[in-house]
């Protein structure tokens, strides 16, 4: 079981690096969708016995993270007629190296944490920390509103991974609530993206510092 989980986590980490290194917004959205799908299936792998509730959460996660949100983002991308390139503040290669360094840091840091015995061997904690850090890097280095949404999604994926540790204890309501929050957040941001676009003819968040009538 753990080996399957570990390979899935490695895939998540690899997708992190892809999200940092790819220059097309569309590709980045697809990468995040794939990551969401992986995360959705993961509770089923972690659980020894699959309850209907867990299966429901898993299904809802896959539906939301892999299908609904990416579709919304793609729509926003199309409607706002954004240029397809990512245009990060620092180059793609430095951000990838930064992401790799963050992953390494997460590993070192996680090995120093006083974890419960059943969590020390698995990659879950380092992977979640690394994903959160990569989300931060995406948020900091990308200037377009829509790529910041993507950074936010990756960040949330990291937190979701961390929640996987508590998968036995976390009640269903909390998980559904988190998913709802995420959905509403992205929904609102997609509307805002449209408005920013109409007001400024650009999605560069740096320009939001300027006052405008």
């Amino acid at each position, binding site marked *: 079981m753990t*080996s399957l989980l570990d390979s899935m986590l490695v895939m998540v980490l690899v997708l992190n690096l892809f999200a940092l290194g790819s220059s097309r917004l569309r590709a980045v959205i697809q990468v995040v969708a794939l990551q969401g799908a992986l995360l959705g299936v993961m509770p089923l792998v972690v659980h020894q016995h699959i309850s209907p509730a867990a299966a429901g959460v898993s299904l809802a996660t896959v539906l939301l993270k892999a299908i609904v949100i990416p579709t919304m983002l793609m729509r926003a991308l199309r409607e706002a007629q954004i240029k397809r390139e990512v245009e990060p503040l620092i180059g793609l290669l430095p951000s990838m190296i930064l992401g790799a360094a963050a992953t390494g840091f997460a590993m070192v840091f996680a090995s120093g944490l006083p974890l419960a015995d059943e969590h020390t061997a698995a990659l879950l904690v380092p992977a979640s920390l690394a994903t959160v850090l990569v989300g931060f890097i995406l948020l900091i280095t990308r200037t377009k509103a829509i790529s910041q949404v993507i950074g936010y999604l990756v960040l949330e994926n990291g937190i979701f991974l961390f929640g996987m540790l508590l998968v036995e204890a976390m009640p269903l309501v909390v998980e559904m609530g988190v998913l709802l929050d995420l959905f509403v957040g992205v929904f609102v941001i997609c509307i805002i993206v449209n408005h920013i676009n109409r007001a400024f003819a650009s999605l560069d968040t740096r320009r939001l510092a300027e006052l405008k009538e």
Partner: protein
Amino acid sequence: MTNLGIHLGLLLVLPPLLLGVINKTKALFAGRQGPPLLQVYWDIAKLMHKGIVLSSTTSWVFVAAPVVGLVTVFLAGLLVPQGPFPAPLSFAGDVILFAYLLGLARFFTTAAALDTGSPFEGMGAAREVTFACLAEPALFLAFLVLVRLSGSLSLAGMLHAPLTISATVEAAPLVLVAIGLFVILLAECCRIPVDDPNTHLELTMIHEVMVLDHSGPLFGLILYAASLKLFVLGTLLLHVLFPFQAGPAALDWALYVLELLGLAVVVGIVESVMARLQMRHVPYLLTAAMLFCAFGFALLIR
């Protein structure tokens, strides 16, 4: 003994077929009928019957390079075991010999390109060496992971390790190494995201531009060596990707050949669905391969 014979036979005969399969896959994706699967054999045979044109500025290096290129890649092919069978040549530390046999082939190809004195070929040589600087560390990091996994310093021991250690235990680093090796394969064999083997625009070429001045049998040797290199690196990758053993020897050989042809189809698909990267983006891809392999190693020593 039979296994040795089959190993040599496959190594000598099969490689051009891989190029044929790649070309056929690309043609099918483009909705064309494409050249027949055996076209590359005919091409090589045709080139062997032609005369050689030698520029007066070239020296013996120009003639030696294709020969050295072919022989070194062939020797490297002897070090790599095919399927679950032992390699014809194997000793502790042959990993390094393997990497530098490929390095020697590259050195002679670039030396021959410089030997012609043509600025175009010099440019191609510079590009080839630049990208090799990034591909080689990635290859060594991949080997490092395998050495750490198997505890063996010979290529045969390393590559058979995924067979014995029940791949499920250490699947995570192997996944990373497989990704890294696939990128190395694409870069070393000049396939599409890095280099386009069909292009005739000098400004975008890497490998093709270095061999522009070679003709006749010399060019045939280069073509054959290129397919051999694809075969050798593909075999290397298959050990990490499909560490399976069927049982009876005949079945294992059949499985191995099928896997190899499948890999050629995958390469063809990658070439069909991807565009060539901009020249300045190629180092990103290779650095990513290096990062993946380094990351696999970090997972192992964690």
